[in-house]
Each structure stands twice: as structure tokens, then as C-alpha cells.
């Protein structure tokens, strides 16, 4: 029997496999495909203080081994989540992680205060890395002082586990990671999408309405792995690895590089059942390699 439980800064998950924000809706979209109660957790679609319509279509471009998106945080606002969505999903036997976003620090604070008051929510993911919203998001995550400032502000109003989702669109991700650790983050998740672009040679126009968008999928996996390894070695708080995980082997690679848990993102679009396969595959790997506790894999890459 393999012990798949993991501990993220005092919060225990039944296994290290979670689903990334923006790729798994609110979980409900996947109930025909997945037993949500088997997941380590669900990071729900990004939430903002007010309703957002998101960006204009087209919001997506297929690329080599990946895709660009420019959804722009379309959501009905934190109050709608609390009043309408959360009552429906709170019965899922898994950890629900709200992912919060803002364009000014005050918005982040207001959303975090509301999340803090939700019964049953133990953690939130502070997104300072959305590349698709002009006025904010990634603006916080690419400068160390602003990343620190927003983390401190949210830390002051949120009592639960605070996970900060980092942007890879920086020169040195370890500087930001150390900054948010110092500001009170309990864990970091990385990476969000890489800023990218697609051009239509026939029309001579950008494919996305926003011109640039966020690149995800296996195309980014080697860079994400490198960043996870660097951050794992730079901070003491747990790291949640994200970036092109398509199967159990990818997930194990992220754990060996230093991830305590992982988030499956774009792969949910290709195979809505992939999260279940990753859990099963991790368990098989542990059996085959005589690993009794999954935690033994974290950062166990031999160098």
C-alpha cells in the first residue's frame, strides 16, 4: 500500500494530483468523466471581485505541442461563486482552492476577505501571473516589490493556506519566490503560462484578439521543470509544479524536481480523464520502485 498523501504547509491532500485553475472549470464540468473525490484538489477558475466578460474571440490558438489562450479571466465574480457555485461544489470530497485575481491590491484584499469567510475553504491560490489582463495580474508577478506587496496584503486578511502562483515571464523566478515567501506565502505554484503569440500568415493578422496570449501544454514542460527545480532549491516552502503535465511520468518528473504536489492543466482539454490516469500511474510507479510514501519522491532527483 502506497501512502499518496502529501502535506502542503500543514494542509493534507489525499494525493499530489490537483487540477490547474482555468482548465477544469469548477469541477462540475468533469463529473461525467472523473470521480472528483479521488483528486487531491481542484483549483477552480480564476475569480475576481466583479463579473468579467473576458477578452473577445478568438481566445485560443493551437501551437506545436501546446496552445495559446487569451481568455482574460471571464468569471461572474466572487459573490456569484460564494452564493451560487460553491454551495454546489462544496460536497465534492476534495480540496477546493479558489484562485483569486485583481487589477489593484485593494481588489485582491476584498476578494481574499470574502474567501476567508467561506466555511470549508482551507486555502487559496493568489494569482499574480495572468498574462491576459491588461490592467493587472501579471503586472504584480513580474516585479518583486509588487509581488511582495500583494502577498503581504492578502496574508494580512487571509488566515488559511496561502499559495502564490508565479509567473514564468521573469528574468529570475527565484527572486520572486523568495520575495513572496518572505511576505508570508505558505507555498508557491509554478508556472503560469508563458507570454506568446501566433500570427496568421494568410491574413497577416494576429490569431488572438489580444495579439499575445499565454502558452501552455507540453511545449513548456522543460522550462517549467527547470523553474520548479530552481525555486525548490531557493525557498523552504512547498512548491506545486505546473507546466505541460500530460501523464504520470511527467508528474513524477515534477515531483523529483521538487514539487510536493502537481497541477494538471491543458491535458484536461485533451483527455478529460487524465487526472485519474495520473493518480493511478503514480501509484503504479511507487509499487514498481518500492516507494512506500510519495513524499519520498519530492526533490529526490539525484544530481
Amino acid at each position: 500500500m502506497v501512502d499518496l498523501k502529501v502535506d502542503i504547509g500543514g494542509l493534507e491532500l489525499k494525493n499530489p494530483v490537483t487540477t490547474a485553475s482555468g482548465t477544469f472549470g469548477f469541477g462540475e464540468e468533469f463529473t461525467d468523466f472523473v470521480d472528483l473525490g479521488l483528486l487531491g484538489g481542484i483549483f477552480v477558475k480564476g475569480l475576481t471581485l466583479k463579473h468579467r466578460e473576458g477578452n473577445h474571440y478568438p481566445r485560443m490558438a493551437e501551437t506545436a505541442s501546446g496552445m495559446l489562450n487569451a481568455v482574460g479571466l471571464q468569471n461572474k465574480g466572487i459573490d456569484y461563486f460564494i452564493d451560487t457555485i460553491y454551495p454546489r461544489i462544496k460536497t465534492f470530497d476534495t480540496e477546493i482552492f479558489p484562485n483569486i485575481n485583481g487589477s489593484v491590491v485593494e481588489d485582491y484584499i476584498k476578494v481574499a476577505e470574502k474567501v476567508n469567510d467561506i466555511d470549508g475553504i482551507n486555502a487559496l491560490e493568489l494569482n499574480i501571473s495572468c498574462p491576459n489582463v491588461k490592467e493587472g495580474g501579471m503586472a504584480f508577478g513580474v516585479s518583486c516589490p509588487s509581488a511582495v506587496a500583494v502577498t503581504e496584503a492578502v496574508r494580512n486578511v487571509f488566515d488559511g493556506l496561502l499559495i502564490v502562483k508565479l509567473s514564468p515571464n521573469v528574468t529570475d523566478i527565484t527572486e520572486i519566490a523568495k520575495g513572496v515567501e518572505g511576505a508570508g506565502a505558505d507555498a508557491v505554484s509554478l508556472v503560469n503560462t508563458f507570454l506568446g503569440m501566433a500570427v496568421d500568415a494568410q491574413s497577416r493578422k494576429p490569431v488572438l484578439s489580444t495579439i499575445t496570449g499565454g502558452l501552455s501544454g507540453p511545449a513548456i514542460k522543460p522550462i517549467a521543470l527547470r523553474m520548479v527545480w530552481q525555486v525548490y532549491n531557493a525557498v523552504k516552502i512547498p512548491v506545486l509544479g505546473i507546466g505541460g503535465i500530460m501523464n504520470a511520468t511527467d508528474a513524477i518528473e515534477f515531483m523529483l524536481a521538487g514539487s510536493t504536489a502537481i497541477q494538471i492543466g491543458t491535458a484536461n482539454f485533451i483527455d478529460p480523464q487524465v487526472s485519474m490516469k495520473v493518480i493511478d500511474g503514480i501509484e503504479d510507479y511507487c509499487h514498481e520502485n518500492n516507494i512506500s510514501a510519495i513524499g519520498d519522491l519530492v526533490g529526490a532527483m539525484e544530481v
Partner: protein
Amino acid sequence: MKKVQDFKVLGYRRLNKDNYILTLIGEEDIPRIWPGNFAEIKVPDSPDVFLRRPISVLDADYEKKTISFYIKAVGKGTLKLGRLSVGQKVNIVYPLGNHFVVGQQQKVLIVGGGSGIAPFISLGRELKSRNIDTTFLIGARTKEDVFLTGEFARYGRVELTTEDGSMGEKGLVTDHKVFSGTFDFDKVYTCGPDPMMKAVAKIAGAKGVDCEASLENMMACGIGACLCCVSPTKEGNKLVCAEGPVFNTKDLLW
């Protein structure tokens, strides 16, 4: 209930150089598929085609456990789906999306253009089973692009337009005589290129007739998670994959 299922290629019916019907056969029971539903097809053995391809279901045979798709090869995904071997495994997620609503109509008009004709075999069958008088108006560029009229004829009258006049009336579907004179349809269903659907919706609106259109947008997940395939509506952006693909045209910003 939506499901992920492996099928095998049963065979192709080639309609012309670019258009084909792909029929898959599976071992499991096929869930009820409604006219307008689609599937997300994984192009097999093609790592260069990263995302699934959303394709409208043409027809399904619940006894034989087959499902078929009318596909026009327009990009690398739909080209590759036209070159599979018989027996090759194909994984699909289905049935997805909403569907055309059949109510208490007496006489309906179906307007299809290009590959937009796919949902109308099963819709025609549904309408005929309810004894609803159905007219199919099919538009194409030339007679080489007119397909499946024999199938449509089983369920109603078939009217044609071609842009070059090589078959049926010459011109666009909206030039067809069904739109001039007495217009006694009480429902219009349309699927095809956006400009065609918009023109049809405008005429239906002007005549006070309810009109449903099936939209096509680029999609990633197909199940309402990624929020990529939105279409603007009077109630804000809606998901073509999960809140559509069929919309009542009075709700669209057309």
C-alpha cells in the same frame, strides 16, 4: 451522459476531393445523440495535432453501435481524419453541446450551407417522426459541392441553390424563392457559414419566425472548461461548446 470512448474506423464514404463521411464502430452502447450534438475527436497517431477536433455528429446507429461524421478537410486535423486505416483506433468525447429544439411546429424550413448540413439528417428524421412538414434548402458553390440530397429527400422537400447555377436555383440560399411570396414556415433551423446564417436569421426575424442557428468556433476542451469558444450574446459571452452550439438567433448580437 458524456463519455470518452475508443472506436475503430469502419469506413469512409468519399463525397468529393475534400469532403467525406467517416464512420466509426464501437463496442459500448452509444448514448442518445440529439440533432446538433457534436463530438471532440482525437486525431490518432498525430502528435502535431495537439487539440481534439470538434465535429458535428452526422448520424448514429444504436443497434450497430456506429457513429458517423461529415467532415470537410480544411486543416491538418481534418485532412488526417480523412486518411485513417480501416480498423484504426479513434478516441472521441461525446455527445457534447446542446441541440436543436423541436416543438409544436407545423411547417419548418432547414437552411444548410457547406459543411453545415451535418446535423440535418438526424433533425429531418426527428421532424418526420413527428409529422412536421419539412423543407430543406441547401446552398452550395457548385453542383460538385451538393451532397446528401438523397438522404434529405427521405424526410422532406429538397430545394437547392448553387452560386454558379449548375444545380437548383442560381445564387445564394437567401435568393431562393422560398423567401419570396408566402412564407408560411413557423420555424427555421440553420447551420453553415456565418454570413449565410446571419442573412437567414435576419429574414426569419423580419417575418416573425423563430430561428435557431448552430455556431462553429475554435474550441479546446469542448466541455465548458477552457472558455475559449465564446460567442457574444445579449446576455454576454456564451460558450459555443456547452451553452451552444445551437442558439436562438434572437439571443445573438446579429
